[in-house]
């Protein structure tokens, strides 16, 4: 089980990368190339990031590099600072010290967030809700067409004229995804977007997330409390504990991934045991 799992502290990240099996590296690089052709994803570099709320120091120095187009999952106990990290990446909160830089000049439309709640405007039809995601392009002439395209991508084209209140929880979350996708973001941050959904809806949403990520090639950062979801979707799982990155786990399993496969279950088990052992220490 441990052989499938490569863990490293941030300082030893390079060393651990050198330990990749050659096969895994090839797969990884191929995928990178594929994405660079589309040139959509943005790389992300975080240096010495700290954040406190009052006396409570939530993030105690995060160093992290995410290559363009990677799907990164962030897991950790509640209160470990994973959502705070996401909010800082998305620019929703102010950084105390340290830096977050994207490889390129970023526009507001390049970084989008999807929350646990759909946060749809109840007084706007589904299509108008998606149009909100266009940012400054909302009033452009092709706004309608672009919103319709995004709605088709999430499979809700037939609901365009409905009020959000008549949609199911999963459908609302798909509209929220459409709204996040409509501006063709280069980084998409997910804050437990599937946390409130039932098990079956959650699985179909995971497939949808994976599909749009593969189609569009944005850099995806997913905060989740569900380790199974993290290993099913991500190229890399970061375990955060007490405001630091405790483990950096690479998931090399080929896609499409088979849910409940022995390999994924093994990974899931070892990440869980890390989380729980951290629990025992405290």
């Amino acid at each position, binding site marked *: 089980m441990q052989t499938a799992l490569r863990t490293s502290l941030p300082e030893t990240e390079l060393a651990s990368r050198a330990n990749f099996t050659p096969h895994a590296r090839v797969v990884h690089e191929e995928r990178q190339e594929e994405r660079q052709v589309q040139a959509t994803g943005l790389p992300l570099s975080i240096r010495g990031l700290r954040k406190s709320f009052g006396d409570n120091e939530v993030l105690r120095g995060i160093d992290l590099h995410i290559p363009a187009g990677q799907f990164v999952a962030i897991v950790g106990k509640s209160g470990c600072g994973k959502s705070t990290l996401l909010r800082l990446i*998305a620019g*929703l909160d102010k950084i105390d010290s340290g830096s977050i830089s994207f490889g390129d000049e970023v526009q*507001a*439309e390049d970084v*989008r*967030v999807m*929350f646990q*709640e759909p*946060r749809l*405007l*109840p*007084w*706007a039809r589904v299509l108008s809700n998606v149009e*909100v*995601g266009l*940012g*400054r392009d909302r009033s452009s002439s092709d706004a309608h067409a672009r919103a319709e395209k995004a709605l088709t991508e999430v499979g809700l084209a037939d609901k365009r004229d409905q*009020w*959000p*209140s*008549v949609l199911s929880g999963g459908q609302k979350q798909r509209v929220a995804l459409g*709204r996040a996708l409509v501006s063709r973001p280069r980084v998409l941050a997910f804050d437990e977007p599937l946390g409130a959904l039932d098990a079956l809806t959650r699985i179909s949403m995971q497939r949808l997330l994976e599909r749009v990520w593969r189609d569009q090639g944005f850099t995806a950062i997913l905060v989740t409390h569900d380790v199974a979801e993290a290993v099913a979707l991500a190229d890399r799982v970061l375990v955060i504990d007490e405001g630091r990155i405790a483990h950096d786990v690479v998931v090399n399993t080929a896609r499409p991934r088979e849910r409940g496969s022995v390999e994924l279950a093994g990974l899931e088990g070892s990440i869980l045991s890390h989380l729980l052992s951290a629990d025992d220490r405290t």
Partner: protein
Amino acid sequence: MSLIDSISFPRSFRLPRLDGLVQWIVPFAIIAIWQVASVTGFVPTRVLPAPSDVALAGWKLLLSGELVRNIWVSFWRASIGFLIGGSIGFAFGLANGLSQLSAKLTDTTLQMVRNVPHLALIPLVILWFGIDESAKLFLVALGVFFPIYLNTLHGIRTVDPQLIEMGRIYGMTDSELFRRVIFPGALPSIFVGIRFALGIMWLTLIVAETIAASSGLGYMAMQAREFMLIDVVVLSILIYALLGKLADSASRVLERATLSWHPAFQKR
């Protein structure tokens, strides 16, 4: 009545599709019983004239043009007073809901003024304005101001902060945020204010007209009392009831048109 009406019944309690007529069964039954009681002499006509007599009095006044003129005068006063007081209340509600500074500056003062019954100002208002139009408009505007102010303020303050954050993330400017998120979010609460205000509007106007006026429905009722025309007095009271119902229905039509997104207003 309006408040209870706006609470939606669970599906199983709803009556089949006679709705439009069902609501009139009780008022018409009351009138029928009243007519019978008057005709049989159970209720002396000096206490309460028969509905037929009231209708006759109404017909006569209608023919003389007096009724229409008085209703028109009252309606005009009510609308103008409502517009003035409503807009000022709405403006203060917006300002205090959106700006901390404005709220700090004016809210305490407004809350103090609110606790003075506005009808207690009638003697003062008569001294200031005499008994002409401005006195009535002032009182109606003052009465209408508070429910609209309070509910607009409450509506704006209780807009879901998560939606506001969402709007900011998606790059809405302040005016866009107001137009797309804050105002529509506050609208249900603003309508509650409007419906309260409509009730207060009639109440204030009628009291003001009975005390100090030379035209209008309240004046017509007071004149009739002087001449012991009890049928005209009862007629005025019935017209108040109808006008109140009309105002309530109008606000409800508006509500349905603008809040069709709201689950409580969707057609079942």
